[in-house]
């Protein structure tokens, strides 16, 4: 039984994610529609088009898998899998509650960060192998973003790891009597931005950028291979949003309600935030994104580590002074930015 249990959870997790993805897609259509004063899908399945994404999935399954003549066939074919398999592996290491986890790895955080960078690799592979200029531009934007945002993402997590002095995700959740976003607002903000870059969601979806690069790296893909990129994106969304909840929002902790309910309340809140930020903020330019990554995110993440380390060593009860210092810095930075904008 002890050996079978992880497999049952793994299967359950995958089924849960796949059913969720279908409704995530529908919810994104509806939210995007509402924000720009449209209805979104209304026809399929009568009530507010709730079966729209199911119909989309069936369409993808039935479509022909077109491989253009001038592509590098081998790399073109395996690129979607290079992106898809690691993000599924990520969802296996996430503790939804203290019991509901497939495997609590000793290196949990690093496992997830290491695997999440394969998304970019698959974009580079797909974009380059397509032999298409838009695809190629998308691939190179993905490469630039991987180099610029891998470090801030890892370093913002390092701050949390220093607080709880473990890499185990379970240990990080158990350690949070106060949720980490209140202790490390700088790390919280850096992770929030780096996560959206990693997920390639607007306003940071420069490798896709449908209004300028058509579909970027995925421009030559169709049918199931294209669907695999899309589904991989949602698996990545699931994995990194869960990681965000675990690292900064206290995982399954919360009063009155059962653990699993609290986890998913927070998780869907993160999803809603991402869905709204996607449609309400204009896309940044590539040079702005690079400048933000190297000049703001990386120094901010390093500053977070520096302050945290200094507080842990110098102050006996470091959590409150640490939180006050970081909040002061965030408010000062916002104030300066406001003056710069004026």
């Amino acid at each position, binding site marked *: 039984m002890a050996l079978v249990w992880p497999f049952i959870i793994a299967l359950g997790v995958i089924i849960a994610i796949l059913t969720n993805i279908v409704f995530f897609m529908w919810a994104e259509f509806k939210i995007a529609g509402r924000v720009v004063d449209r209805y979104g899908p209304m026809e399929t399945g009568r009530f507010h088009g709730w079966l729209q994404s199911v119909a989309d999935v069936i369409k993808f399954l039935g479509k022909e898998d077109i491989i253009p003549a001038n592509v590098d066939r081998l790399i073109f074919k395996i690129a979607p899998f290079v992106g898809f398999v690691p993000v599924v592996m990520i969802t296996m290491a996430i503790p939804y509650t203290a019991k509901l986890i497939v495997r609590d790895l000793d290196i949990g955080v690093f*496992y997830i960060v290491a695997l999440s*960078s*394969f998304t970019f*690799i698959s974009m580079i592979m797909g974009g380059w192998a397509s032999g298409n200029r838009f695809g190629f531009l998308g691939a190179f934007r993905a490469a630039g973003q*991987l180099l610029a945002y*891998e470090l801030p993402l890892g370093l913002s997590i390092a701050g949390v790891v220093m607080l709880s002095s473990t890499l185990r995700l379970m240990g990080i959740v158990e350690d949070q009597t106060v949720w980490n976003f209140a202790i490390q607002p700088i790390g919280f903000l850096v992770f929030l931005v780096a996560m959206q870059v990693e997920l390639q969601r607007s306003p940071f979806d420069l490798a896709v950028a449908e209004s300028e690069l058509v579909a970027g790296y995925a421009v030559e893909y169709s049918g199931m291979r294209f669907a695999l990129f899309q589904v991989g994106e949602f698996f990545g969304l699931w994995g990194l949003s869960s990681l965000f909840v675990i690292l900064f929002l206290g995982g399954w902790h919360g009063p009155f309600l059962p653990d699993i309910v609290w986890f998913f309340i927070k998780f869907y809140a993160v999803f809603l935030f991402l869905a709204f930020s996607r449609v309400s903020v204009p896309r940044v330019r590539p040079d702005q994104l690079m400048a933000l990554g190297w000049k703001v995110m990386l120094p901010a993440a390093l500053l977070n580590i520096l302050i945290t380390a200094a507080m842990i060593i110098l102050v006996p009860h470091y959590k409150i002074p640490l939180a006050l210092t970081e909040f002061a810095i965030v408010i000062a930075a916002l104030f300066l930015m406001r003056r710069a904008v004026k």
Partner: protein
Amino acid sequence: MTGQTIAFYLIAAILVFGALYIVTSKNIMRAVFMHLFAMVMIAGIYVLLSAEFLAAMQILVYAGAVTTMIVFSLMLAGNQDSPTGGVSLDNKKKLPALLVSGGLFLTVVFMIAGQKWPSVEKAAGLAAPSVAAIGRIIFSRYVLPFEVIGFLLLAALIGVIVVAGREE
């Protein structure tokens, strides 16, 4: 034959195939992607040896490094398949190349063969060292090599900035 041994030989076979593909391929992009594949295989061997932290680091570091290599290989060598052509990947000085690489190969082989290694089964049976233990040993016993490596990388970083900044 335990599961570990079978997995080891399987991974090793794929790894050797990948490594040979890297050096024999005429297509530089395929070689770079195969390089990533080989690095993942090495991470697999680390996992077999219960060195999970090292495996994660291997993937984390080389995923970024491979991207850098992609960018540089395309900028420096160009795409071999493109109509404009790129830099030829064939080396004209075959004998010196053979001597240098052969000498390096023999040195590494003798160094590896000269060590007494525990068997894969034995290593897999050992308790995995915790990340905390690795951290403690790096910052106590091996703190000097660690600092030297850090200093070396810093020197390289500054060197790159100096070289790149000179053109302006």
